[in-house]
């Protein structure tokens, strides 16, 4: 009996590595810490009522952002481990197997569990406010999306200490991800972690399309809508077209692994190339899905801090739509070297290069917005300006890669690694940072410290260039991606060392940002204006942080940058702050179903990973039961009374008569 328990435990838990024991200990300690703090301060009821069951888009957004910062930490530690291993030739820090697991989890976590939730967090906290809406179209669905992402992410992260991490790369190409070559549970953690959170992403896409198209403030035509909301719309349309392909692709891989199918196997007539086509039909749009909202953020920031209307609004909108369409026509550039033939390669090379045109339009529009503006360099603007050279270099190396014959040289080299990190870190992560600094006062009601923010900015940028510029050179010198060690005779030592130093500086920059947040909370100066940057769009017309019903009175929009125009009119005496009459506000009720249903999904995933039908089947029944219970529930909303609105507004320093 004891022997069989021991045998089970040695297979179930990952053993034999000090890093993993360290992770075990820290997981157990942090769970104990969280549980005891919550119990000591009697906060369980508060946590459940205010956060775990909330359907308020702002709180859901904050939870997304919090989760994604945690994942940034996890993915960043993975990156530092890899750079430590590559700092010197013939390092013995990580084994080859362990290195494979780390680059796989680094990629998956950074794209799917860091960039996506950070983006959804910003969607959630900002889009309804920008549109002058009380909430997203479907608050319950929104909460469900978050909890599905959360249980998917937790499932994926668990693989580090239970069962073993996936090691087939972030897109899990077969045949290596097939059962014959990869029998452990790691690959199944990959499938279910992404599958469960992917369903959440798809629902977020549908939710925000409907929100943006149908619940805007009266008078806000599409061509008066703020640019960030436009970018969210184009990103969500791409989500709706791309994510079903991911769902199918992962399901097919699962059928191969679990039911003995032959979609992508080497035997039985399977076709691994089919997987590579399918995964990139999702994977390429995916990178535009995450970068488009960052473009929207830049557009908001550049207009606010240049004190000018955004230059070329219409061309920005069209550029975004063209980018989201073209993103679906370029997937094969990820495998130019895999035998597609000259005609196919030429088609995909040309469509790839075409994307540079709308992207260039956007960069020029930002520059022209700054031209003759009264620019001030607060942290959000600093990030925005810093990103331009970064993104232009990243974009140009992208055009180099899109030249199919030249790609035979660059393919799978560090040149490629440097390129995609440059566009994804500079375009996406820095873009979302800029958005976080910009909207922080709106979300939390106070500004972050400017001085520490500048330190973080410079450290991030210096670290970034030190880390990735040498990698372009290393790629041209023949260093390939995914290799875990190299000899002294290659001549790659110095460049790799510099690159590692850069990565460490970026790690330090992250810590400075955390310090910035802690410092700013300690020395908090409440923002009483609601509009600390003197900004232009509707979210700044209400108190910060926004009351739970957002707008006490629905705004009437008459122009683009409506809040800015209204401020001008009031300043010139053309309009007086009007006397308003409040009405009861219709709001959705909190619900525990989303978190419970996601826990059941977690059991489905975990059960199928370990082939435990006794867990997966009840889990699935639980999922269905939650759906049925929700379908029968007709009591989902309530009205906020006028007295409560008056009281809430008065607490935020606004008297409504």
């Amino acid at each position, binding site marked *: 009996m004891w022997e069989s328990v021991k045998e089970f435990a040695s297979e179930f838990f990952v053993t034999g590595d000090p890093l993993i024991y360290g992770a075990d200990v820290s997981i157990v300690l942090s769970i104990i810490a969280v549980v005891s703090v919550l119990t000591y301060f009697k906060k369980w009821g508060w946590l459940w009522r205010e956060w775990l069951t909330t359907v308020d888009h702002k709180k859901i957004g904050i939870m997304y952002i919090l989760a994604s910062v945690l994942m940034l930490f996890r993915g960043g530690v993975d990156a530092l481990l890899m750079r430590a291993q590559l700092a010197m030739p013939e390092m013995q820090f990580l084994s080859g197997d362990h290195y494979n697991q780390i680059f796989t989890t680094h990629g998956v976590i950074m794209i799917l569990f860091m960039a996506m939730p950070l983006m959804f967090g910003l969607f959630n906290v900002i889009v309804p406010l920008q549109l002058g809406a009380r909430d997203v*179209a*479907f608050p319950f669905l929104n909460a469900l999306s978050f909890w599905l992402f959360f249980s998917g992410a937790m499932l994926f992260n668990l693989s580090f200490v239970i069962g073993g991490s996936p090691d087939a790369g972030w897109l899990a190409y077969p045949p290596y991800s097939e059962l014959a070559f990869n029998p452990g549970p790691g690959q199944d953690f990959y499938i279910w972690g992404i599958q469960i959170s992917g369903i959440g992403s*798809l629902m977020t896409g*549908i*939710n925000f*399309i*409907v929100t943006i*198209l*149908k*619940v805007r*403030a*009266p008078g806000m035509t599409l061509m008066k809508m703020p640019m960030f909301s436009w970018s969210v719309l184009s990103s969500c349309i791409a989500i*709706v*077209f791309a*994510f*079903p*392909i991911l*769902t*199918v*692709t992962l*399901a*097919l891989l699962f*059928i*191969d692994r679990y*039911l*003995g*199918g*032959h*979609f992508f*196997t080497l*035997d*039985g*007539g*399977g*076709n691994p190339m*089919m997987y590579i086509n*399918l995964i990139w039909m999702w994977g390429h749009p995916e990178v535009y899905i995450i970068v488009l909202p960052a473009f929207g953020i830049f557009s908001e920031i550049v207009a606010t801090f240049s004190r000018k209307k955004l230059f070329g609004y219409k061309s920005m909108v069209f550029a975004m739509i063209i980018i989201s369409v073209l993103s679906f026509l370029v997937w094969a550039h990820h495998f130019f070297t895999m035998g597609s033939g000259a005609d196919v390669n030429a088609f995909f090379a040309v469509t790839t290069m075409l994307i540079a045109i709308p992207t260039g339009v956007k960069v020029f529009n930002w520059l022209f917005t700054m031209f003759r503006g009264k620019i001030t360099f607060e942290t959000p603007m600093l990030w925005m300006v810093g990103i331009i050279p970064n993104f232009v270099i990243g974009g140009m190396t992208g055009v180099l890669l899109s030249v199919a014959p030249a790609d035979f040289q660059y393919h799978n080299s560090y040149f490629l690694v440097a390129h995609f990190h440059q566009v994804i870190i500079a375009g996406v992560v820095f873009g979302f940072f800029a958005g976080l600094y910009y909207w922080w006062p709106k979300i939390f009601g106070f500004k972050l410290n400017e001085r520490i923010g500048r330190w973080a900015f410079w450290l991030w940028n210096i670290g970034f260039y030190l880390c990735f510029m040498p990698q372009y050179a290393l790629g041209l010198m023949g260093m390939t991606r995914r290799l875990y060690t190299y000899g002294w005779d290659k001549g790659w030592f110095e460049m790799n060392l510099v690159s590692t130093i850069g990565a460490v500086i970026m790690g330090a920059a992250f810590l400075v940002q955390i310090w910035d947040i802690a410092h700013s909370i300690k020395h908090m100066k409440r923002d009483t204006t609601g509009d600390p940057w003197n900004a232009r769009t509707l979210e700044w017309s209400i108190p910060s942080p926004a009351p739970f019903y957002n707008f006490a*009175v*629905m705004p*009437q929009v008459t122009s683009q940058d409506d809040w800015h125009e209204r401020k001008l009119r009031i300043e010139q005496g053309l309009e007086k702050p*009007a*006397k*308003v*009459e409040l*009405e009861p506000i*219709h709001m959705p009720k909190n619900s525990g179903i989303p978190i419970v249903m996601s826990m059941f999904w977690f059991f489905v995933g975990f059960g199928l990973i370990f082939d435990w039908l006794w867990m997966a089947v009840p889990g699935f029944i639980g999922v*269905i039961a939650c759906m*049925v219970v929700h*379908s*029968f529930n*007709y009591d989902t909303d309530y009205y906020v009374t006028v007295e409560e609105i008056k009281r809430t507004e008065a607490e935020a320093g606004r008297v409504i008569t």
Partner: protein
Amino acid sequence: MANVNAGHHDHHPDQEELRTFAFWIYLMTDVILFATLFATYIVLQGSTDGGPGPKDLFQMSGIYASTFILLTSSFTSGLAILAMNKGNRLALMNWLGVTVFLGASFLFLEINEFIHMVSEGATIGTSAFLTAFYTLVGTHGLHVTLGMGWMIIVIMQIAKHGITPVTKRKVNIISLFWHFLDVVWIFVFTIVYVMGVN
């Protein structure tokens, strides 16, 4: 601003309309899901790996019968909508019930076909063609199963609440879903069965 408030109620988003719109977008994602499965099936159609192919396996008489049943069920779900628009609650519930029954008959024939094929040694692991076949046709069958469960839940809610804006929207959406399954089946019938045996 005061005159804005007068129009407040006009701008309150109509939840039933929003949900129907969202459901159309969801259906679009389902179209892409099936399109991906069809593409995979077409690529792998010939990869029988020496095992049985479409001509050896498909028995068209059963397929014609199940196609006829599914098309009829789409018609009866349309009759349910007509009954609902006339405000006839009993007829609405009855026609939905008939639709569920026809869906169950379709599913019965499909499961029978699968059992028959497996008994002839054509399992999901036999070849890439069969993996793609069972996945594509099975995914459609899974949708039919979900649709039936959903319809039963809607019938129960009509029994409880009668014909209200909410139940009306639910009936409209489930019937939309049911027609969609019919359209997908026409593609399955054409691409998998008719083109498979010819």
